[in-house]
Each structure stands twice: as structure tokens, then as C-alpha cells.
């Protein structure tokens, strides 16, 4: 059992989320982990766990498999959709090979049986620590980056917009191209661009539906789900090219849709337009990036950001 306090790069203790409908179990795990110097949050079911994951940054989720409502495997699936990189340890009272195989297939970092053996829990924690160490080593090297070029072609069905936006803009923080506050706006601008490529571009959805009341939102979400499971749409790729140097970053994002008429964009601060709920994505992107260009067919956008910290 580790005696020292384990820390991440920001000297914050590892934060775990413990999920079980039995409060005696969550309390027992919490007690053992807190004794070892870790920080714990508990949740009584899958729904509560997802809410906590939306609010906090966790290093590991430890979840029971059988819970009323959303069970551990369903929770694991939902976590891998929202936060593919968040490790999940599954605990079960009834060990079956099917359950173990299913948990690992869905992306669990490990699988242990009840009664809980804490040496097995700490073994998994050590695995998470090793992963974090590797991340920290990469982070340190990132400070000294001279130039980096990346090129992705991601099928729409496997593109997790929020996590990808963070992943693409993380190097800007490491090389101090922008400060933390500016990084958040850059990440959100990349998020806007990726959402456009996915929803307007490859899935050919009409996002004005989304803001036309609850019925519109439901039909938008229904259509999006349907198309994400239709190979004709889901296999279309979003291509991302990023080129980062110590002084600038350039991102080019291209979809396989029919493009849009960027010349027809209206400045949303024009009187008469302010009350309209749509058409601010590109405007917000233009507020953040120094250069914004489209190709002729309007299915590719190129963004340039110059160094903001002297």
C-alpha cells in the first residue's frame, strides 16, 4: 500500500470517483484510499457518476458492476464516449468470464472481484500513476517543442469533439503560445470548427432545428444519432492538419460535406440580427484566431494564431 502522497504534475493528489449503490462499500473504499493520501468522491449510481464526471477532473473511476438503473458496464460505455482517456476499474460480486471480457472489451483498465482485495486496487492505481508519469514526461518535453506537424483523418462516428479540441490545443499551453485564459477560448474555437465539420459538414444536419424548441431539439438529436450509426455518414472523415511552432499555430479542418456559402455570412452584431439564435460560430472563431480562411467550396477552414505571450 503506498504510504506517500502521490501527486500529478500540478501537485494535486490523485482524485478518484467511487461508484456503488451500497454506501458501506463506497465508504470502505473511500476510507482506504483517503488513508493512502488520495482524494475521493462517491456516487450512488451511474447517473450520479456521470454528473460528477461532468463537474470534476478524475484520475480513475472505481465502479461496481451491478447497480440499479445504469449498471457498471453501461456507465463504462458512457464514460468511454465522453472521456475516452479516463481509466475505469470495474468491481463485481459475481465473477464471470463474460463480464470480465466485456468490461475489458469496453475499455476498463482492470477488473476485480468482491470481496475487494485492496492490493489489487493499488495495483491498478500504480498502473494509472505510470500512465500519468509518462504523460508528465511528454509534458516536460513539450515545453521545448520547435515545430510539430500532425495530420489526422478521423471517421465522424469516432470523433469525440470536446476531447479532440482539448487534445489539439494542449501543445499551445505547453509551449506557452497563449496563456491559460486564452487557451480556453482557442479550445472552444476549435470545438466550434469541429462541430461545424461534423454536424453541418459530414452529417448534413440543420442546426437551426436544435434551437427551435424542445421538439426541434429532439428531432435534431434523433437524426444525429441515426446518422452517426449510418455508415454512409459515420464513415465520412474529418481531416485535421495542425502545424505548431514556437511562434504560431495553424489548424486546417476539412470535412467531406458539400460545403457552405461563407460569403453569405452576416455579422451577428448587425441590428436585427442580435435576436437571432444562429450564425455566431464563425464570428466567434474570427474573434479568437488572427487569420481565418475558407477554401472555394467552403468545406475546409484554415485558422492561424500568432504567439500571444511575449
Amino acid at each position, binding site marked *: 500500500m503506498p504510504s506517500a502522497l502521490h501527486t500529478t504534475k500540478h501537485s494535486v493528489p490523485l482524485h478518484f470517483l467511487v461508484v456503488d449503490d451500497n454506501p458501506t462499500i463506497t465508504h470502505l473504499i473511500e476510507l482506504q484510499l483517503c488513508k493512502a493520501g488520495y482524494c475521493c468522491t462517491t456516487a450512488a449510481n451511474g447517473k450520479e457518476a456521470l454528473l460528477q464526471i461532468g463537474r470534476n477532473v478524475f484520475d480513475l473511476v472505481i465502479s461496481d458492476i451491478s447497480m440499479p438503473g445504469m449498471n457498471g458496464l453501461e456507465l463504462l460505455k458512457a464514460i468511454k464516449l465522453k472521456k475516452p482517456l479516463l481509466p475505469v476499474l470495474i468491481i463485481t460480486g459475481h465473477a464471470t468470464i463474460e463480464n470480465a471480457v466485456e468490461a475489458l472489451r469496453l475499455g476498463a483498465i482492470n477488473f476485480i472481484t468482491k470481496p475487494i482485495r485492496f492490493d489489487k486496487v493499488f495495483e491498478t492505481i500504480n498502473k494509472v500513476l505510470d500512465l500519468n508519469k509518462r504523460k508528465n514526461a511528454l509534458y516536460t518535453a513539450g515545453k521545448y517543442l520547435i515545430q510539430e506537424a500532425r495530420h489526422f483523418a478521423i471517421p465522424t462516428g469516432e470523433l469525440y469533439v470536446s476531447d479532440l479540441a482539448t487534445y489539439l490545443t494542449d501543445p499551445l499551453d505547453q509551449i506557452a503560445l497563449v496563456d491559460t485564459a486564452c487557451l480556453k477560448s482557442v479550445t472552444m474555437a476549435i*470545438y466550434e470548427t469541429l462541430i461545424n465539420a461534423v454536424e453541418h459538414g459530414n452529417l448534413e444536419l440543420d442546426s437551426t432545428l436544435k434551437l427551435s424548441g424542445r421538439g426541434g431539439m429532439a428531432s435534431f438529436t434523433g437524426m444525429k444519432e441515426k446518422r452517426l450509426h449510418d455508415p454512409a455518414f459515420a464513415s465520412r472523415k474529418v481531416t485535421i492538419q495542425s502545424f505548431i511552432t514556437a511562434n504560431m499555430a495553424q489548424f486546417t479542418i476539412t470535412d467531406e460535406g458539400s460545403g457552405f456559402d461563407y460569403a453569405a455570412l452576416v455579422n451577428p452584431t448587425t441590428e436585427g440580427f*442580435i435576436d437571432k439564435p444562429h450564425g455566431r460560430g464563425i464570428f*466567434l472563431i474570427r474573434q479568437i484566431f488572427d487569420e481565418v480562411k475558407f477554401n472555394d467550396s467552403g468545406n475546409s477552414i484554415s485558422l492561424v494564431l500568432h504567439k500571444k505571450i511575449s
Partner: protein
Amino acid sequence: MNTNMIENSHAVVKIAGNLDGQKSDELMIAVEKQIIPGNVDVLVDFENVDYISSMGIGTLISLYRDIKEKNGYLILYGIRDAVKDIFDRTHLNKRLIICDTEKDALDYLRNKHN
């Protein structure tokens, strides 16, 4: 999204994290649930919102229009600088009712209803 109905007169919705597409859907559902006859005033706590996307802005405008039509008030408070900057740049500060604190928002409501 945490929503509280206060003394059957107004609702307070607290947003945690960035107001992106998914959070906007949650906000729309949370606020629409609160708009019932006799209770159309909604306060939205922005204290934990670091950044707002275009869908977040669109959602606020839709809600503002719905609530205004029903003679109610949508009031935002606790707004951080980055979000305030976006409201200024998009001129939404001219439409939305923005207060510093929850107390200011409640004072605003009291004045309007008296």
C-alpha cells in the same frame, strides 16, 4: 445542471463548466421545465462557466425570447470576464439582463414586480 425552485416564484439554474453544445441542451431542458404558469422568472448562475460556445449563445437567446413572451425575466449573474467579453463582442449585453450577484438579480426582480 442543478435547478432549484424558490418559493414557487422563480427558479435558479446553476451551470457547471463550459456552456458547449451538450451543456446547452441540458440548460434548455432545465429552464423549459421551470417555465410554468405563474412562474416564468429564471436566474442562471454563470459563476462556474469558463467559456460559452455559439450554441450556448443561441440557447440563451431562445430562452430569453420564450421567457419574455410570457412576461417573465431571464437573468444571468456571476459572469466571468471571458464570457462577459463574448457577450460584449456579440452585443448580447444589450439584450440579456446581466447582474453581478444573485442578490442583485433578486433585487432586479423585486423592482420589476413591485
